[in-house]
């Protein structure tokens, strides 16, 4: 039995705690105990529970007890800013204890000469990101660098373990474990529903039993309230912008308020509204992922100094950066998931003994129900389940290339190493050989590129197949193009003097002409011109558009959707709702039906010469977009003359010229086999997914912003590659990888499939004489949501020509 009481701490640490009148917390000691027992450890604790210290405590103890040279601890965080932040929280105590421990940061922003020096003379502790770690692994000296590595600490593991960056880190850890067999893995997580799942992800060979799971003490209950408008809860909308004045009052009444929005576009909109209501009285700011790094750093620094009273932000702030004095969090629109809400609330008040305070501002009536559901879920500590997927093939290709860049490897040994990473546990050996063939020469049946191979293989004296990089130029190429985050093509937004404000996606910029105005970085900007990759602007006072960003929206989680359904089916709950929400549900139950949990309610009714069908499937916006598209296609075939559809998180509605008498055939599961495959293959979804896997998998080089290549190199697009590949090699590894991505990320096919499987047995059809109350929130979207209605490109072009003609008339 190891003794890990406070008295067992080395003198400097014990003194440090004592000088501050603190005692190590229970979970900090439990983490230390796990380390002394040589076990991997996962700490699950709310933000602000001394997690950073808990993660590093064992390393500090070891370095105090046995000072030495060489890299001892590697800390990996998904955010660059976070590494900076932890450096501060760790360096503080180290300086205060006057310890001889060197801590350095390594990210994409680290100057080259320091990176070189870090490899030659490593610090005791290195703080980095998954991408930078993968790059480190690609250097020949990585074997020396990591030979004595004792601990790897993965922070905010809940934020990325289930994503591609999680795949990459899992593979990197497998590599580190080979280089340093005694390596101990530690992960720090926010509160999650399935800590076993994360333990499996963390452990070598997915062996959860080798991981000690330490649970931090729960903080005080959060105080969450729902902000209601002064008059009625709106029928539709997502922003909650009706509450601008009230939010401004909240900001005025608190020290510092974070205002979270679900999208960047919404953040810009809300900021504009607040700015107007504010009249310049209070210092407020905006922070989102498209702002320039300088702009974000400036806002972060102002926050850290306590100079801002309010900050409008998106998910870019979700992760655990320590902001000090935030005493209130406002969530505009619905939270979409209980875990996400909890993490956002965790941004406020980092002292465990005081409650965090949060205010939800639902945008419409369904969102009101969703906000209630989230509130209940948080109170009951019931969180959303994260789904661990199989590791991506494109990420594996990038990792194998990194390994080959460092040193030749043995095929069989490498396969065993890769399989020790949880996401790749069940990788078949044939699939692994296919990966290697893909990296070497593209993996084509036509062996056209054997003479250009990037990897060469030969068989050594023991009969083992050895793979090596065929030419040093490919190492350089790999390092230039490695990375997991593939941005949509972007343009830099700049003032005439060259100052960069941030980026907008190319496809949005393409809709702008000189003289147009749009909101960005909290300002109204007028377009002066577009040249190469720069969008030149000047400040304007004119009203402006909100930029839009590609990408799937955050879907409503299944768990919250179930709770909302629970509300619908249980009138006893309604008494607690605002009067107009209660009335809305009551009238629905009188005029139509309220679906029971598990039931799929379909309403059909005529309205203004059109026939409507509304399906309340509660599977989230992404799934409903796909389903709406598919169902309208089926309606077309069935001669129902569909005109279009609209969707929200809770339902989708089609409108057509003919009446849908029997909805059942429109929802049969074979839709996923027939129409779906055809539709996805021809849709932008798969092309976008393909673009990402082609970059990550190293098929095409990354476009480096601001360094657009010249001449021949720019002139191909991944869309064309996709078309050719589909035509000649439909089973190619990258197409498979793109499909896997599209299936999970972009269309929520799993949820779709589940819905369709259940549809026949759970469908309740209400044929109504007129529109129902429940249908209103989705129907008001008609004409407002700019979603292509399944129209083919040709028809859109014809429409555009007609418009151009009208616009140009008389010229």
């Amino acid at each position, binding site marked *: 039995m190891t003794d890990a009481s406070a008295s067992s701490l080395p003198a400097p640490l014990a003194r440090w705690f004592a000088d501050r009148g603190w005692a190590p917390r229970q979970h900090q000691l439990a983490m230390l105990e796990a380390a002394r027992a040589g076990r991997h450890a996962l700490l699950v604790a709310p933000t602000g529970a001394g997690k950073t210290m808990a993660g590093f405590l064992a390393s500090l103890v070891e370095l105090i007890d046995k000072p030495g040279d060489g890299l001892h601890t590697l800390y990996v965080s998904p955010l660059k800013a976070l590494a900076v932040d932890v450096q501060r929280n760790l360096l503080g105590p180290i300086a205060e204890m006057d310890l001889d421990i060197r801590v350095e940061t390594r990210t994409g922003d680290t100057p080259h000469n320091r990176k070189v020096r870090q490899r030659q003379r490593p610090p005791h502790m290195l703080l980095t990101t998954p991408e930078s770690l993968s790059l480190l692994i690609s250097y020949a000296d990585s074997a020396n660098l990591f030979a004595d590595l004792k601990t790897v600490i993965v922070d905010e593991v809940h934020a990325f373990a289930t994503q591609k960056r999680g795949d990459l880190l899992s593979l990197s850890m497998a590599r580190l474990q080979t280089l340093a067999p005694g390596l101990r893995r530690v992960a720090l997580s926010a509160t999650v529903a399935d800590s076993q799942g994360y333990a499996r992800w963390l452990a070598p060979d997915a062996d959860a039993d080798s991981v000690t799971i330490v649970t931090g003490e729960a903080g005080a209950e959060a105080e969450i309230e729902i902000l209601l408008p002064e008059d009625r809860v709106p029928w539709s909308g997502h922003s909650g912008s009706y509450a601008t004045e009230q939010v401004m009052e909240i900001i005025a009444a608190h020290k510092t308020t974070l205002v979270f929005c679900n999208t960047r576009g919404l953040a810009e909109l809300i900021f504009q509204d607040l700015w107007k209501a504010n009249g310049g009285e209070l210092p407020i700011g905006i922070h989102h992922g498209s702002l320039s790094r300088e702009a974000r750093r400036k806002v972060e620094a102002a926050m850290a100094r306590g100079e801002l009273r309010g900050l409008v932000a998106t998910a870019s702030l979700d992760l655990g950066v320590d902001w000090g004095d935030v005493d209130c969090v406002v969530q505009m629109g619905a939270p979409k998931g209980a875990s996400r809400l909890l993490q956002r609330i965790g941004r406020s008040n980092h002292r465990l003994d005081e409650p965090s305070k949060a205010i939800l501002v639902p945008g419409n009536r369904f969102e009101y129900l969703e906000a209630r559901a989230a509130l209940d879920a948080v109170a009951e500590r019931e969180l959303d389940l994260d789904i661990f997927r199989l590791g991506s093939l494109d990420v594996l290709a990038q990792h194998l290339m990194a390994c080959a860049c460092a040193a030749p490897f043995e095929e069989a040994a490498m396969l065993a190493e890769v399989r020790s990473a949880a996401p790749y546990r069940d990788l078949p050996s044939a699939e692994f050989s296919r990966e290697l063939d893909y990296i070497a020469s*593209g*993996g084509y049946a036509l062996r*056209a590129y054997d003479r250009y191979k990037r990897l060469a293989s030969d068989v050594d004296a023991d009969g083992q197949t050895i793979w090596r990089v065929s030419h040093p130029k490919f190492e350089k190429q790999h390092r230039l193009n490695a990375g997991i985050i593939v941005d949509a093509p972007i343009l830099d937004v700049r003032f005439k003097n060259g100052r960069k404000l941030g980026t907008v996606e190319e496809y949005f910029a393409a809709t702008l002409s000189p003289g147009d105005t749009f909101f960005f970085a909290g300002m109204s900007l007028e377009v002066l011109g577009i040249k190469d990759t720069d969008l030149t602007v000047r400040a304007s006072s004119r009203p402006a558009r909100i930029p839009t960003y590609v990408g799937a929206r955050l879907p409503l989680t299944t768990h919250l959707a179930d709770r909302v359904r629970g509300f619908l089916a249980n009138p006893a709950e309604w008494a607690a709702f605002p009067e107009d929400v209660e009335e809305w549900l009551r009238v629905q139950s009188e005029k139509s039906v309220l679906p029971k949990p598990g039931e799929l309610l379909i309403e059909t009714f005529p309205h203004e010469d059109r026939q409507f069908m509304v399906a309340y499937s509660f599977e989230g916006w992404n799934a409903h977009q796909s389903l709406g598209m598919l169902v309208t296609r089926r309606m077309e075939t069935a001669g129902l003359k569909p005109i279009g559809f609209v969707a929200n998180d809770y339902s989708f509605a089609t409108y057509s010229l003919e009446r849908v008498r029997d909805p059942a055939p429109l929802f049969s599961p074979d839709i996923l086999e027939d129409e779906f495959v055809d539709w996805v293959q021809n849709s932008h979804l798969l092309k976008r997914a393909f673009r990402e896997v082609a970059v990550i998998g190293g098929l095409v080089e990354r476009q480096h912003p601001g360094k657009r290549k010249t001449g021949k190199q720019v*002139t191909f697009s991944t869309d064309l590659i996709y078309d050719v590949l589909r035509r*000649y090699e439909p089973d190619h590894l990258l197409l498979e990888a793109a499909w896997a991505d599209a299936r999970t990320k972009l269309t929520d096919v799993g949820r779709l499939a589940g819905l369709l499987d259940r549809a026949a047995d759970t469908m309740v059809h209400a044929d109504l004489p007129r529109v129902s109350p429940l249908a209103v929130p989705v129907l008001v979207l008609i004409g407002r949501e700019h979603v292509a209605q399944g129209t083919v490109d040709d028809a859109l*072009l*014809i429409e555009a020509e007609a418009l151009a003609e009208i616009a140009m008339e008389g010229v």
Partner: protein
Amino acid sequence: MVPFSFSGHDLVALPQAALFWPARKALLVADLHFEKASWFARFGQMLPPYDSEATLADLEALIAATDARELWCLGDSFHDSAGSERLSDAARTKLAVLTDTLDWTWITGNHDGALGADCGGRIMEEAEVDGLLLRHEADPAEPRPELSGHFHPKLRIRVRGKGVSRRCFVATTRKLILPAFGALTGGLDAGHPEIARAVGADAEALVPVNDRLLRFPLAA
């Protein structure tokens, strides 16, 4: 197939990014960029090695559909000067059959070095055919009506929130730029200043769809 009139000739812009000249039964294509993928493969970007085959298959289908007798390639037929050496045997045979069957002319472009002698067809720097000048890159100073390639024009617009991008022709009264035909050839925005410089003012993007030819005025 709806013909449009260009300098007194009836021409048909095909949705497959080619131009058909019914009076001569001639098919005109620009920027085939054969062996573009293998050019990139040499530098470690292993693009699918099927672009020449795909381009040839498309060309064959078009020849069959139009019953063309003449074929004019308006330059950049190979992605680089060594391109013809890298053609697969299958593609080389296919190409040889085509150049043998049709009256085939290669107009040379900036990417074409020595076209392989074994490719067949005749090689010309430019040609004047029934009063129309055929060359690779439009010459702003050329007074005669001119057909060319080189720029790979593409129309990009957004309609009802959806982006549509399509290879297109760019036309003025005296100049017509063809879209790129090659399977892996990307595009340059039709409104790009370089294209405007080459063709002058009052240009239109022409987009053939099924049985219509759409016209989009391009900002000068």
